């Protein structure tokens, strides 16, 4: 934090526009580079949450799945605070034949 930031905060001024520009660019470039549209990302987010919530109880309010980009590499970042672990229910034995018997 710089002296300028402190003064801006004390006076209740908006953050400098360069900072806003940087944040907006990072977000838009993450989307541009991955070629994922917001709708697809939202669907993926819901499915990820669904899978994860089979194993642990997660805080859906705090949970966040988003794209981040650094050094021209885009990453899918999931931040999912865990409330508690759920008792693991083993899936019912599949109908597939036992490999040993084949």
């Amino acid at each position, binding site marked *: 934090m710089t002296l300028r930031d*402190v003064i801006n905060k004390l006076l209740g001024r908006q953050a400098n*526009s*360069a900072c806003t*520009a940087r944040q907006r660019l990072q977000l838009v470039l993450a989307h541009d580079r991955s070629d994922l549209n917001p709708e697809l990302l939202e669907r993926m987010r819901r499915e990820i949450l669904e899978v994860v919530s089979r194993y642990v109880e997660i805080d859906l309010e705090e949970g966040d799945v988003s794209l981040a980009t650094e050094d021209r590499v885009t990453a899918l970042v999931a931040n999912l605070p865990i409330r508690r672990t759920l008792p693991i229910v083993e899936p019912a034995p599949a109908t597939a034949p036992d490999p040993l018997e084949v």
Partner: protein
Amino acid sequence: MTAASTRFILICSGKGGVGKTTLTANLGIALARQGARTAVLDADFGLRNLDLLLGLENRIVFTAQEVLAGSCRLEQALVKHKQEPNLALLPAGNPRMLEWLTPEDMQKIAQVVGEQFDYVLIDAPAGIEGGFRNAMAAANEAIVVTTPEVSAVRDADRVIGLLNSEGMKPIQLVLNRVRPRMMANQEMLAVDDVTDILALPLLGLVLEDEQVIVSTNRGEPLTLNGTQSPAARAYANVARRLLGEDVALIDPSKERRGLRAKIGRLMNTKIF
């Protein structure tokens, strides 16, 4: 000198109006002044302007199009600069014939030109469509020009993605139209912000400079007569770096003097 050691450098930006053609003209003159035989190829044949910035608009008779068709010799199409005989301009084509050019044509033109020159600078059109891809096909390294604005940086990023996927190397960045005062007040993206986001090495940093407009009015690039305006120095330095010289980049925060600049620097020191 054979074509094998000729450098074919694409100058591109994605967004229009960020200073591609101005950089090409100034860099061409600056390289020529350092003794390098330089050709500038205007690949933007739909909306060509390189001739205008170099003051050569009245001397174009033929274009690369006629050279390829065999209706004139290369020497007839190359427009030599009067004051700087090491520099020649070749317009790629005629605005009335937009459909003829393919990436292979551009490659052929560049190769033919390359036999007589040390540097071939290719001024790409704005956008990322056909014209840009044609220009890209003729180059083996690239300079991406951008300004510290969100739209220019975003478009530069798209272009860099395309260049990367074509295996273009090296790709270097020129940051144009930098306003030190706005940067100091953090009302303009910082140099580091842009280089971090685009992940390219910085080849040059050009300050916003009214003399650029004056020089385009006259058709005499700033690097031509050794004027000492900030942009003139920056362009000359880009040329020297291309030639392998180790020239330090300017620090925009040191470009401002006086009390206000001092206070500005104090305000931007990290305190915690």
